C-alpha cells in the first residue's frame, strides 16, 4: 500500500468537510429565507444548496421523499433533483454488459417521459466490463454516470476511487432494501452490495446457482428408477450430496444418444464459479477461501476433495464443455441433451422459451447438492451451499456530474414495482434478487417468464456464498483459480497440485496487494457467509 494514500484521504476528507460546512451555511441561509423546500411540488421552491452530485449531506436530505410506493417516491425525488440541478434534456449514461439493454429499455420510455431526461446505454462486451471500468477509474472522464458491474469487482472499484458509497441514499429513501415481502433476498442484500461495511451497489440481478433437472420424464420413469437403484443401491431422486450428483451424472451419461448426465459452466475464465459450489459445502458453516489471515484454504483436504469431484463431473459432460461459454451450455440444455446441471438462473429463460425449449414442462429445480460434514454439536450433517456466482449491481460513478440522479435511477429501476418489469422484458437476463420476484407469491409475470425456478430460488439463495467478494483483487484471484482448474480438468495437473499451485499464487497476489489491508477488508466481510442449514 502506498504511503501517500493517507494524504489522498486527508485531502478528500478536508474537501468533503469543507464542502459540507459551506453547503450547510449557504443552505441554512437560503433555507431560512425561503422557509425550506416544499416537497412534491415539482421543485417550485427549490432553495437548497447547489451541491450537485453530493453523496450525502444537505443536498441529499433536502430531496423530498414522498409517495405511496418506492417507485413513486423515487420518481418524485428524481424530478426534484433534475429541477434542482438543471438537468432537464441532458443524458443519463449507464455502462452495462452487452446484451443487457432489454431491462433498461423496458422502462426507458417511462423514465424519459416523466423526467424529460435522455437515457443512454453504453454497452460493453461482458468480458470487458471490468477493463472499461478500470480505464474510467484512471481517466476519470465522467463519461458514465453509473455502471452495472459484478460484486467480485467491487473491492477494486472502490479502492480505485471509481464508485461512491450509497449507504446514505439507501437509508434515506428506504427502497425496501431488506426484509420481506419485497426486500432484496437475504443474504444477497449483504454479500452483493457491501464492501468494508458500506453499501456501494444496488442489486439488479442475483445469480444464485441452482440445480436443474431437465428430464422429469426420466427421473420418474420406473425403468430408470429400477436401473439406477440396481447400479447404485439407492433410489433415483434429486441429489442430496455431490456423491449422488456424480452417480446420477454417470448413470445418465449416454454419449451415443447425444445425452449427458451433467452440464456445467467450465470455460477457462469462468470454471471457478461452478467450482465454488463444490467447495463451499465442504466445511460447516461454510468452507471459506481464506482463513482470517488471508491464507488460502484451497490446498486443504476439503479443497482437494472438491476439485476431485469437480474433475470427475467433467467426465459426464459433453467432451467439449471446457471450451464452451454459458450460452452453448444453455443451448445443449434447452435442446434436451442434458439431464442435470448446476447453473445460472438465467438458464430458466431458455428452458421456458416456448420457441426453443425441448424440455418445456419437463424440467424443475432443486436445492444444490451438499457434502457430509461435521455440523454443530459434532453431529454429521449434509451441508448444502451454493454461490451467488456473478450477479450485477448498479454502482454510481464518483466522476459523474449527476450522482444523486444516477443513484435514484438505480433504486427506481430496482424498486419492487419496476424490477419485475425490467426482469421479465423479452431478452432481459436480470435474474431474481427481490422476494417479490420469487416463491409462491411471486408476480405472475415472473412465474410466466421463469417457471419452476422460482419455487426453490429463495431457498437456494439463503445458502448462497459470495465468490471472492469483499476484498481487492477479486478478479485476479478468480482468474488464477479458473485457469488452473481448467488445466486440471483437461489433465495438466492433479487436483492436489492444482490447489497447491493456486494457493501459492493467491499468497503472491495477497502480498502484492497488501496483506494487512486485505486482512482488514476480509475480516469485515467474512461474517456475510451463510451459516444456516437447510
Amino acid at each position, binding site marked *: 500500500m502506498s504511503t501517500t494514500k493517507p494524504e489522498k484521504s486527508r485531502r478528500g476528507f478536508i474537501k468533503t468537510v469543507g464542502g459540507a460546512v459551506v453547503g450547510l451555511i449557504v443552505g441554512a441561509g437560503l433555507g431560512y429565507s425561503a422557509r425550506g423546500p416544499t416537497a412534491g411540488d415539482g421543485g417550485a421552491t427549490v432553495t437548497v444548496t447547489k451541491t450537485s452530485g453530493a453523496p450525502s449531506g444537505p443536498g441529499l436530505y433536502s430531496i423530498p421523499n414522498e409517495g405511496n410506493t418506492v417507485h413513486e417516491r423515487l420518481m418524485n425525488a428524481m424530478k426534484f433533483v433534475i429541477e434542482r440541478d438543471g438537468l432537464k434534456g441532458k443524458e443519463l449514461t449507464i455502462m452495462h454488459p452487452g446484451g443487457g439493454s432489454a431491462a433498461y429499455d423496458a422502462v426507458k420510455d417511462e423514465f424519459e417521459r416523466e423526467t424529460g431526461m435522455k437515457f443512454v446505454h453504453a454497452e460493453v462486451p461482458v468480458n470487458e466490463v471490468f477493463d472499461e471500468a478500470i480505464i474510467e477509474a484512471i481517466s476519470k472522464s465522467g463519461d458514465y454516470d453509473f455502471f452495472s458491474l459484478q460484486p467480485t469487482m467491487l473491492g477494486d472499484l472502490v*479502492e480505485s476511487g471509481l464508485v461512491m458509497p450509497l449507504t446514505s441514499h439507501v437509508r434515506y429513501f428506504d427502497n425496501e432494501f431488506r426484509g420481506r415481502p419485497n426486500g432484496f433476498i437475504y443474504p444477497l442484500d449483504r454479500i452483493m452490495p457491501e464492501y468494508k461495511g458500506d453499501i456501494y451497489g444496488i442489486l439488479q440481478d442475483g445469480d444464485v446457482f441452482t440445480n436443474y433437472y431437465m428430464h422429469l420424464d426420466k427421473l420418474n420413469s420406473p425403468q430408470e428408477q429400477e436401473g439406477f437403484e440396481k447400479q447404485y443401491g439407492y433410489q433415483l431422486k434429486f441429489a442430496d450430496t455431490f456423491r449422488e450428483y456424480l452417480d446420477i451424472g454417470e448413470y445418465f451419461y449416454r454419449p451415443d444418444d447425444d445425452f449427458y448426465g451433467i452440464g456445467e459452466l467450465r470455460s477457462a475464465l469462468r470454471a471457478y464459479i461452478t467450482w465454488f459450489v463444490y467447495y463451499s459445502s465442504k466445511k460447516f458453516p461454510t468452507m471459506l477461501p481464506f482463513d482470517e489471515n488471508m491464507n488460502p484454504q484451497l490446498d486443504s483436504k476439503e479443497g482437494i476433495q472438491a476439485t476431485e469431484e469437480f474433475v470427475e463431473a467433467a467426465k459426464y459432460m459433453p467432451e467439449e464443455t471446457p471450451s464452451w461459454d454459458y450460452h452453448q451450455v444453455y443451448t445443449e440444455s434447452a435442446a434436451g441433451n442434458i439431464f442435470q446441471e448446476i447453473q445460472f438462473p438465467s438458464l430458466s429463460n431458455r428452458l421456458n422459451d416456448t420457441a426453443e425449449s425441448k424440455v418445456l414442462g419437463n424440467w424443475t429445480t432443486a436445492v444444490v447438492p451438499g457434502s457430509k460434514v461435521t455440523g454443530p454439536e459434532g453431529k454429521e450433517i449434509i451441508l448444502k451451499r451454493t454461490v451467488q456466482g456473478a450477479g450485477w449491481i448498479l454502482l454510481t460513478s464518483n466522476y459523474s456530474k449527476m450522482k444523486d440522479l444516477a443513484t435514484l435511477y438505480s433504486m427506481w429501476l430496482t424498486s419492487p414495482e419496476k424490477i419485475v418489469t425490467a426482469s421479465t422484458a423479452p431478452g432481459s437476463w436480470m435474474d431474481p434478487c427481490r422476494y417479490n420476484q420469487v416463491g409462491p407469491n411471486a408476480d405472475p409475470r415472473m412465474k410466466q417468464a421463469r417457471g419452476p425456478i422460482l419455487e426453490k430460488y429463495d431457498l437456494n439463495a439463503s445458502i448462497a456464498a459470495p465468490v471472492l467478494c469483499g476484498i481487492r483483487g477479486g478478479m485476479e484471484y478468480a482468474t488464477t483459480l479458473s485457469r488452473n482448474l481448467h*488445466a486440471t480438468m*483437461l489433465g495438466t495437473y492433479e487436483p492436489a497440485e492444482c490447489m497447491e499451485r493456486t494457493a501459492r499464487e493467491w499468497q503472491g497476489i495477497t502480498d502484492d496487494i497488501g496483506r494487512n489491508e486485505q486482512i482488514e477488508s476480509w475480516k469485515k466481510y467474512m461474517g456475510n457467509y451463510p451459516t444456516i442449514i437447510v
Partner: protein
Amino acid sequence: MGLKEWTSNPGKFKNLLAMPVQLLMNIVAMPAFILAWYVAFTNWRPIRGDWWQADFIFFDNFIRMFSDEYFIGAIGRTLFILVVVVSIEFLIGFGLAYTLSGEFLGKKVAITAILLPMMVVPAVGGFIFYLMFLQTGPVNALISLITGTEFTLAWFNYPGTALLTIMLTDIWQWTPFMFLIFISSMLALPPDPINAAYVLGASRAYTFRRVAIPMLRTPILIAIILRSIEAFKIFDYVYVMTQGGPGYTTQTISIYLYEFGFKYARFGYVTAQSLLIMVTMGIVAWYASKPLRGAG
C-alpha cells in the same frame, strides 16, 4: 544559420520539411513514453491510487518478470507461433506468387480469391475457425468423410491441437499478405537481367535462384519483418478461440499483458514488461533490417 541556407541545402531542406511532424509527434508521444518509463519503475495499480502516488520500486518489476513462469511461457509460446506461422506463410505465399506470376486464364480471379481472407476482421476470422473446429463442425466432418470413420476430436481441449487451430487461422488469414508483397515484387522485376540469363543458356530454375531471388531480397525481408511484428502481437484469434486455455497453454504475450494489465490492473508490472519487449524487439528489428539500410 539563415533560412536561405536551410532551403538551399537539400539535406537540410529535407529536415526542415519533416520538422513540424517530428515536433508534433514528440509533443504527443514523448510525454506518454516518458511516463511509461516512470510507471515501469513503480508498483502502480489503480487500487493504490493514482500513478503519482505509487511507490518507486526501482528494478523490482524488471527482476521479477524473469521468474514469472507465465510471462516466460507466454514469450516462448509467442515466439514459437511466430517462427512456425511466418515460415509457413512465407513458403506458401512465395510459392503461390511464383506460380501465379506467369500469364494464364483467370489470373485476376485467382489473385482476388487468394487475397480475400486478408480482408476479414481478425476476430471474425477467429470465430469462423472456432466454429469450423468445433466437435460437430465441418473440419471433423470432412476428416470423417475422408477416413470413413467417425472423427470427433475436441480440438480446443488439448494444448497442442488448440495451438494448432490458432496457427492455422493465422496462416489462412496472413498468407495472402505475403503473397501480395511477393507477387507485386515479382511482376515488377526488370526483365532484362532475366532475359539475359535465358539467352546465356541458364535454366528457368537457375535463373530464378541466381537472378530473381537476389533481386527479391528486399521485399522478402520487408515481408518477413512486417509479418513477424504482427505475429508477435497475435491476440484476436486466441481471445476468441481459446481465451488462452486450456489453462495457460495458448496464452500469448498479448493475452498475458491484457490479462495482467486490465484484469489484474498491475499497470506498473505490465508496463515494465511491455517496455522490455519493445526494446528487445527494437534491437532485433534493427539487426534484421540492416540489409535494408544497406540497400537504401
